[in-house]
């Protein structure tokens, strides 16, 4: 039987004076992952946007648990979003969305 894929949820903080749309954020994330790991590597990350608040510059993404460090490295390599200077920091990592928000509140 196929093993259930374990997932991790990453809370992200966008460090920039500009505001971005969720599409611009995901484009930056995908392009960073593609540049570092190629299409084959990117296909293994299971990257998906779960929640996004452009005004608060906050996002939650989902990745496959074995790809957390790779995605973290790709996120750290981002210096621009939509050609505007920006950085993204990982605030927290959790196995469920519920605990992720709980950790963030603490």
């Amino acid at each position, binding site marked *: 039987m196929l093993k259930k894929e374990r997932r991790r949820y990453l809370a992200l903080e966008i*460090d*920039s004076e500009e505001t971005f749309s969720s599409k611009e954020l995901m484009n930056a994330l995908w392009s960073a992952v593609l*540049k570092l790991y190629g299409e084959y590597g990117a296909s293994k990350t299971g990257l998906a946007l779960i929640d996004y608040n452009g005004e608060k510059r906050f996002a939650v993404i989902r990745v496959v648990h074995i790809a957390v*460090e790779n995605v*973290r*490295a790709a996120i*750290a390599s981002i210096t621009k979003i939509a050609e505007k*200077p920006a*950085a993204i*920091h990982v605030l927290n990592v959790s196995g469920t969305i519920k605990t992720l928000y709980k950790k963030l509140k603490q």
Partner: protein
Amino acid sequence: MKRIYADLHLCPNLNNERQTARMIRKAAALGYRLIAIPVPLSFTEKKVRWLRNLCEEVGIEFASRIDLKPRTPRELIVNLRRLRRRFEIIAVLCETKQVARQAAKDRRVDLLNFPAINFRRRFFDKAEAELASSGLTAFEIDVKPLIMFEGTVRVRLMSNLRKEVAIAQKFRVPTIVSSGVSDELHMRKPRELAALASLFDLKETAALEAVSKNPVAIVKRNREKLSPRFVAPGIRVIRRGKDC
């Protein structure tokens, strides 16, 4: 026990006091407890104290650092003799093989750094690592070029770093991962630096040590050596006076 994260190569523009203060505050917010800023030789004691106070205000420790870029081994030795007791960290940017070899074997040198773009001048090979391992010198990697470069330059850099890190691990030369950035937006959290280290095949535990245990150990060792109580490794003055 909670890790103490350190960035031994934060490079704010020291002529811009506001930016320097902002970068120090950001380092504290990102989770660093110890930072080192390379200061020029012309920097006065008063200005170093200003940096130290800025760091104390935000609850982080400051270590003074000087980056030497000697052209000859002789110049390196002269500089080390003059500066060793003035700075907590001495890093050498090795631009020639002779300088790299001298820096690796000299116990007064803390960090070996190599040019990021000029791959012909990256002299960290087996001979260099063997000298460094006996001379207690650490191998420093700045992540700034990994963040800034793209394409083939980054590919070559990652490939070189992978080989160098493997050599360093084989000869038990401590690896240190620093940021080397001069812009706030390029500053990264310690765990993000460790994640970037995975790009040159540094395992997670080794990468975390490269941003915590290894740099902290260097600063601790040097502070002990610079203290007036220090006599020799393992020997220090406990009490002075006529009754001793």
